């Protein structure tokens, strides 16, 4: 979560990114403490491998350190930038490593579960993070399964609309409609959480 809304005395994500741009290790350390759990969960959700998720997390924070000059506030919130880095790196890793057959097998099992219920449950998050996650999970959990599946194939497997259509055997027009409707519902749900992240 973006914790600057929780405690005004803490530096914002953007202030920490500014510190990283100045090559201040303490700023990176704080960003690590704040988001390593979220970024690792995302990597894990994509590559499904604990050791690879740990490797990716280190690579991602090294990327943040080495390429912080590429981040500007005009590009959006710092968290969004870090999530995009994580997602791209993880999907690249997945494409290199896994055969499509293996992915299909896992997806078939996983698309039956809501996104918040996945992964290892080894941590008690702080209350604010849990509340936020509950809201986001609820928003996504309200989607019809077909819309959720299409969105998950796009987001967690990095598939384009045509790839999703080929993968599922469903007409491209139907996939487009499912993605558009599903993403609109999520966007509308997020409007109530403005400024939270």
């Amino acid at each position, binding site marked *: 979560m973006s914790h600057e809304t929780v405690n005004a005395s803490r530096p914002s994500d953007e202030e920490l990114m500014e510190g990283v741009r100045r090559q201040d290790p303490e700023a*990176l350390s704080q960003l690590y403490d704040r988001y390593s*759990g979220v970024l690792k969960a995302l990597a894990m959700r994509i590559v499904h491998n604990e050791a690879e998720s740990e490797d990716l997390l280190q690579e991602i*924070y090294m990327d943040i350190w080495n390429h912080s000059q590429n981040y500007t506030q005009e590009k959006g919130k710092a968290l969004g930038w870090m999530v995009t880095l994580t997602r791209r790196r993880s999907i690249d890793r997945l494409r290199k490593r896994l055969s499509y057959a293996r992915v299909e097998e896992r997806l078939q099992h996983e698309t039956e579960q809501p996104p918040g219920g996945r*992964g290892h449950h*080894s941590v008690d998050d702080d209350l604010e*993070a849990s509340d936020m996650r509950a809201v986001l999970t609820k928003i996504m959990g309200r989607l019809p399964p077909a819309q959720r599946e299409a969105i998950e194939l796009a987001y967690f497997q990095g598939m384009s609309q045509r790839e999703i259509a080929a993968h599922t055997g469903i007409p491209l027009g139907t996939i487009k409609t499912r993605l558009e409707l599903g993403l609109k519902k999520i966007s509308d749900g997020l409007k109530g959480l403005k400024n939270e992240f």
Partner: protein
Amino acid sequence: MSFEEFEHQARLYVLEAMDDDERASFEAARRQFGQPAESVIEECKRLNAAFALALRPQPPKQEAKAKLMALIQKSLAEKRATKA
């Protein structure tokens, strides 16, 4: 492309779910619509973070941070040595 269509497609663009031809068409419209288009895209970027935040955080191993910070210190030392 109307602005309304642009708004719908912006979510797909942010999720990088467009095929190449669609992306080219969308980026042309993005240039055409200017700042209002940038505002739409900015808003849509929240989607990316939302999917990550909906997952239950998974803390990395204890030693992972120490290893990372050692690499950072090494990188800093190398940069300083290069400057000196």
